[in-house]
Structure formats: structure tokens, C-alpha cells
């Protein structure tokens, strides 16, 4: 995020785009509620009537997959009505003239059909955003999980640049990232193209710096993104093929699109290693399982979505009889075993190595993390007065070499797989509060499992339910070109009739059996928010209930979960 999460409360207008805070991050949603209480206006752009939509001054219930058409049209109105910050554009940006030409095409009337939004609402949103004086954009997976994703982010950035909503308190653009430490994974270089601190692997000076620090020769080639693993297993030539797959705190056999293809890949890879705290779906294909400690059993540093480093501390010892190690100890031992001796005594030593090699993190010492709790990078000086950076781009200075922001002129493109006669509905994956990610953690918490359990729900508009003759709680079959699964019908008028929504953590109601592996060309993120599907009634409900029960038992047994009965009641 360009601005701190804590700044959300102080914005005068929140433009919440494809971000369902209440379900993904209640703690961030709390900031949105507080902003509202402090008098902020809220525009919510989402095809569903999400919690933020209820308290919004304007809810734009756009058609799924029309993001960039809407964003460009809002830009059109801002230009048309003379609401731009001309001084900011002139002093701090490049490419506005070209962008003006593109935006000219996107009249609210011209996109009304694509977006299913009235021209008046588009105009109102543009005026509200451009004139509040302090507007902040928050976006989430409703932007990122499309084949056209990065370009929508650029489109949203256009809005912030043209109205001067960058480089101040309570403005900017905030990707509220999906998981607690996904920012940390990127910060630490768990990306195919960078070392820790976003230092590119293709830059010779950077390569030399890390070679010197680590005492080994390093590759200057960009690696393979996670979502392209199936391709590199199934369709690449012998010499390019992936042969071993070390999966670490991830469950691609549950979380990746088109699970049938993922399973085929996992069975064909010669070696699969899984490092996790509990057994999961990917573990069923693993040759080696390395059990690691849970979040409360080890120390470390997490990065928040707003670039804030925070220490996490061990609360309890792992059970004495559990043969587990912390992740960093496992990695050190693996590394040592394959010929690169790695030895640390504690996480502070590792952290010191990280900040020594990353200029942007250099000042974020354990001492300061203890003293100030949260340090947002960049933090370049070890001096105690450098407490990090709450918002980026101060005084309109951007991270490009010339210090200027760049407008992007990009046309809207429709999603990859559109509805058709055979599959007339849109399937979009979503989140539910209570279960986290692939359920490796929350599915093993009995309270949360009691709150919601297999096979999960499919959210459907009541009119659609009536047409199909299905009722609340009834098991239904959901199908796409790629596969099918069984889930419970959840009628709700918070969703439109044309789209159904499922959460992706369930083993039986596994919506990723259906999703499409169509990737954004830049981020390689799959189009989880759009594929064509069909919902079918199951006539024999007794059979379906038994199927779910048997399937659950099978999966748990195949994972080696003991189903002991204690005290006479069924487990």
C-alpha cells in the first residue's frame, strides 16, 4: 500500500474497489467503519452487496469482469468536468496527453452496458472521488484475480495521479493483500524475479552483491512463477521440465485453479516435498513431508500489507513428542545437506543479514521493532529517529528514475471464459470470515470447523434458486468445463442473478475444480473471479448427504487423520 492502514481512518473519501474487508480482514474493515464514523464518504465498487456496500454513500454494483471499463470511464468524467489536479499532473507525471485520448472514448454512456452501471452513478463517483480533497483507494482480489488485473491497478493509479491523491496522509492506493504475510514473502524475495528487497536478479551489480554476501555463484535468470508449474511439468521439453517441487506453507492442490491439471502435475513431478504444520491436499502427493512449527511456536518478522514490519514471538513450546522444527531451522538443515552450510542461532541473525543486504529495510533493526512495534519500509537509517515511512511518494516524488508517475493508457478487455448456453452463470471465488486461506490452519481449529464445515456454500440469488427449485442448505452440483463439485445452496439477495460465489478452502465443495488457469500476463495471477459455470439440482438429497459424509471420511483417512471416538459420541 502506498499509505498506512492506520491512515484509512483519516481519509475523507474511501474508494473501495473489489475489496471485501469484512470477510477478508475484519481488522482492516474496522478502520473503514471508523472512517465512516469520522465522517468519511464511502464509494463501494463490488458486484455483491458486501458489508462495505451497506454503509457506503454510493454502491456501484458493477457487472463482474468490467473493472477497467468502469475505471477508465470515471477518469473520463474527471477530465470532462475539469476536476483534475492540473498542477500535480504537470509537475509529477508523464503520459497524460496520451491517456486523455484513451479516456475520451470511455463516456459513461458507452460503458453502461458493459458495466451495468448507470451513467449518473459513474459521474457521481467521479465527482466524489475527485473533489473530496483526501481520497484513498483500497482494492483487493476483486481487482487482482482477473486475467486483466495489473492493468486495472494501473487504471486506479491513473485516478490517484490525475487528482493529486498521492504523497500525503490519508490518500494513495492500497492493495489490501490477501494474506497476513504475503507482503513479507514478496519483501523477502520469494518471487521468481527478485532477491530480498525487490532487487532484481537480472541486474549485474545486485547479483555481485549477493554473490559476495553469500559466497556462491548465483543465476541471473528469472525463475518460474508458481502458477506456471503445471505448464512446466506437463508441456515443456525434457530439458526445461520441472522435476522437483518444494512446497512450503502452501497447498496448490487446493488453492490453484483447475485442480485436475494441478493433480496431474503433482503426480508427474518426480519429487514433491511439503513443509507445513498440518497435512493438506498437496501432502497427499508428497514424497517427503517436513513438519514445521505453527505461528505461535516460533519467532519471526511479518510484513503487513502497508509495508509494516512487526515481530512475531513464540508463545508456546511445540509438544515435546512432536518431531517439529521451525521453518528457518528446516531450511538451514536442507541447505546444509545439499552442500551450502547454513547456520543461524536465532531469527535476529537472519534478520540482520536481510537488512544488511536491503537498503530499503536497512534501518528496521530488532531494537527499533521492539521499541516502535511497527516499522514501515523504506527505513534506510539505523538512527532511532528514522521510524519508517507511513506513506510513499512524498511531495509527488515517485519511484521511477525520473521521479515521475506514469499514466497508463490501456483498454478494457473482457474476461477469458464468458457464459454460454451450456454454462450460463459466472463463478467467482470469494472469502468467508472464519476460515483462512486453504483451511490448513482454520480447518484444524475445531471451533471454526464447527462454525462452518464441509462441503461449504455456493451463494446464489434467490430468483436463481427458485428457477432451479433449490432451497437453503440443499446440496447442489456446480459444474464447469473443467470439473464439478458439490456444495450447499445459500440463497442471498446480496448477489446478482448472473453470478454465483464460492470460497476456495473446502475439500468437497472445491471450487478450484471449476476455475480457469487463465493468468494475468504480468502478475501470473489466475482469473479466480470469472469463469463460466452451471448449477444443477440433485434430486436424491439423501444420496448427496451420504456422498459428502463418505467423501469427507475418505479424504481425512487418506490424510492419516485419526477418527478416534472417545466417550461414546461420533467423531
Amino acid at each position, binding site marked *: 500500500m502506498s499509505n498506512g492502514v492506520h491512515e484509512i481512518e483519516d481519509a475523507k473519501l474511501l474508494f473501495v474497489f473489489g475489496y471485501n474487508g469484512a470477510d477478508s480482514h475484519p481488522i482492516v474493515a474496522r478502520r473503514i467503519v471508523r472512517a465512516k464514523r469520522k465522517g468519511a464518504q464511502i464509494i463501494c465498487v463490488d458486484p455483491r452487496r458486501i458489508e462495505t456496500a451497506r454503509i457506503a454513500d454510493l454502491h456501484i454494483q458493477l457487472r463482474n469482469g468490467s473493472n477497467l471499463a468502469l475505471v477508465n470511464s470515471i477518469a473520463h468524467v474527471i477530465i470532462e468536468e475539469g476536476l483534475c489536479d492540473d498542477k500535480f499532473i504537470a509537475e509529477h507525471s508523464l503520459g497524460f496527453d496520451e491517456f486523455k485520448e484513451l479516456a475520451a472514448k470511455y463516456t459513461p454512456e458507452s460503458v453502461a452496458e458493459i458495466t451495468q452501471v448507470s451513467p449518473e452513478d459513474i459521474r457521481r463517483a467521479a465527482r466524489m472521488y475527485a473533489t473530496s480533497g483526501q481520497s484513498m483507494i483500497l482494492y483487493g482480489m476483486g481487482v487482482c484475480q482477473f486475467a486483466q488485473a495489473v492493468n486495472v491497478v494501473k487504471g486506479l493509479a491513473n485516478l490517484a495521479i490525475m487528482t493529486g491523491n498521492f504523497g500525503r496522509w490519508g490518500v494513495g492506493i492500497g492493495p489490501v493483500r490477501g494474506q497476513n504475510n504475503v507482503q513479507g514473502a514478496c519483501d523477502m524475495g520469494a518471487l521468481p524475479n527478485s532477491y530480498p528487497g525487490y532487487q532484481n536478479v537480472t541486474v549485474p551489480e545486485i547479483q555481485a552483491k549477493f554473490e559476495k554476501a553469500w559466497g556462491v555463484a548465483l543465476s541471473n535468470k528469472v525463475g518460474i512463477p508458481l502458477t506456471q508449474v503445471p505448464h512446466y511439468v506437463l508441456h515443456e521439453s525434457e530439458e526445461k521440465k520441472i522435476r522437483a517441487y518444494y512446497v512450503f506453507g502452501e497447498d496448490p492442490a487446493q488453492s490453484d485453479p483447475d485442480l485436475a491439471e494441478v493433480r496431474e502435475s503433482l503426480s508427474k513431478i518426480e519429487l514433491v516435498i511439503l513443509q507445513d504444520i498440518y497435512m493438506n491436499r498437496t501432502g497427499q502427493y508428497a514424497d517427503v513431508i517436513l513438519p514445521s512449527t505453527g505461528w505461535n511456536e516460533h519467532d519471526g518478522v511479518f510484513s503487513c500489507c502497508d509495508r509494516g514490519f512487526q515481530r512475531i514471538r513464540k508463545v508456546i513450546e511445540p509438544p515435546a513428542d512432536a518431531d517439529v522444527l521451525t521453518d528457518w531451522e528446516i531450511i538451514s538443515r536442507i541447505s546444509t545437506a545439499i552442500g551450502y552450510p547454513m547456520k543461524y542461532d536465532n531469527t535476529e541473525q537472519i534478520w540482520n543479514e536481510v537488512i544488511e543486504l536491503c537498503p530499503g529495510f536497512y534501518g528496521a533493526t530488532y531494537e527499533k521493532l521492539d521499541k516502535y512495534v511497527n516499522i514501515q519500509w523504506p527505513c534506510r537509517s539505523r538512527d532511532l529517529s528514522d521510524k519508517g515511512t507511513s506513506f510513499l511518494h512524498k511531495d509527488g516524488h515517485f519511484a521511477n528514475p525520473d521521479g515521475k508517475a506514469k499514466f497508463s493508457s490501456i483498454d478494457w478487455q473482457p474476461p477469458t471464459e464468458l457464459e454460454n448456453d451450456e454454462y450460463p452463470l459466472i463463478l467467482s471465488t470469494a472469502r468467508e470470515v472464519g476460515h483462512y486461506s486453504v483451511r490448513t490452519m482454520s480447518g484444524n481449529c475445531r471451533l471454526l470447523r464447527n462454525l462452518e464445515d464441509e462441503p461449504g456454500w455456493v451463494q446464489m440469488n434467490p430468483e436463481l434458486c427458485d428457477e432451479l427449485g433449490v432451497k437453503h442448505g440443499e446440496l447442489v452440483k456446480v459444474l464447469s468445463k473443467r470439473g464439478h463439485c458439490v456444495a450447499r445452496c445459500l440463497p442471498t439477495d446480496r448477489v446478482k442473478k448472473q453470478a454465483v460465489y464460492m470460497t476456495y478452502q473446502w475439500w468437497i465443495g472445491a471450487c478450484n475444480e471449476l476455475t480457469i488457469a487463465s493468468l494475468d500476463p504480468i502478475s501470473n495471477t489466475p482469473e479466480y473471479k470469472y469463469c463460466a459455470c452451471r448449477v444443477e439440482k440433485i434430486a436424491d438429497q439423501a444420496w448427496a448427504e451420504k456422498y459428502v459424509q463418505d467423501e469427507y471420511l475418505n479424504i481425512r483417512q487418506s490424510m492419516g487423520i485419526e477418527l478416534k471416538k472417545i*466417550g461414546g459420541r461420533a467423531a
Partner: protein
Amino acid sequence: MNHYVQGDPLLCIGCRTCTIACVVAHEGKRIFEIDPDGYDFHPRLKVIKTWSVSVPIQCKHCENPACKAVCRSDAISTMDGKVLIDQAKCIGCKSCAEACPFGAIRMVALGFEVNPDGSRRSVALKCDLCDGLEGGPACKRVCPTEALRLVDEDGLSHSLTLKRQNTLKAASAPELCGRPQP
């Protein structure tokens, strides 16, 4: 006056943290039993979601409770400003659940009590304001958006005063409200 917990739909984000907290408060250490079913998951409130509202619904602890009036087994009483159900006395007739105008009572099967025929005892359950538990209602304590408040006499009177003032503003000429401008 009996107290009650009231949710504010403008603050509620429908996250159900209250639901979990309710179970944790009432089951205590039993949630750590080795037996996965060694505790009961019976939240005493229910978050409802409609087009325009998300909010938990729970017992209002009525001053003249309909549930108590219809109870044939003397299981419902008012004590220390709370309407309470004595599950040991409950015969499971469901009359209270039907009588409650708010839908705040539900029937649950208790895991630890078995009928003579081996079936689990089904009894009426509702919010008891965490009677006897330290710190007051758990739902209110955990709510991330502070959407829940415990309404007592002062709280009710304060909110009524605010409403009266708003009525005055709406009903009168603006110049009659507040001090004259200098």
C-alpha cells in the same frame, strides 16, 4: 431494568467473532478436550444478514417475558436483571421458542445429557448475558468494530434523550435548536 446486548447494524461487519466468543465463554476449558466432540458448539446469538442489515440477534431480556409466561415447567425466571433458562428443568416443549417475538431462543441437543432412550436431551437455549462469567458479555468484549453494547438503564435513557433531540430537530424550525448564532 433488565440489561441486554444490542447490536448496531451500521457498525456490524457480520464477522461472527461474537458467535465464537459466546461458545468459548460458555464452554470454557472444555474446548481443549482431546475428544473433538467434548464440548457443545451452541452459540446463544445468531448473526443475520439481509440486503441492508447485518447484526447479531439475541435475547432482549424482556421485563415481562413471553417465554417465561408460556413455560410449563417453571424453567424460566428473572434473576439479577437477567431472564434465565434452567436447562435442568426444561422439558423441551419449544413453547418459549415459539413465543419469543425476536427469534432469540433456539432448541439445541446437549452433548452431555442423554434421555432414557439414549437420545440427546433437547433443551431451550438463549443469551444469559454471560451470567456468572467474569468480564460481562463476551460478545461485546470481542467485537472488532465495537458494534455491540450492553444497554442498562443509563444507556437506554441516554439513547432516548438523543432520539428526542433528533425528533425536535426534525420537527421544529432550525432556529429553535441550539444557541442563537452571534
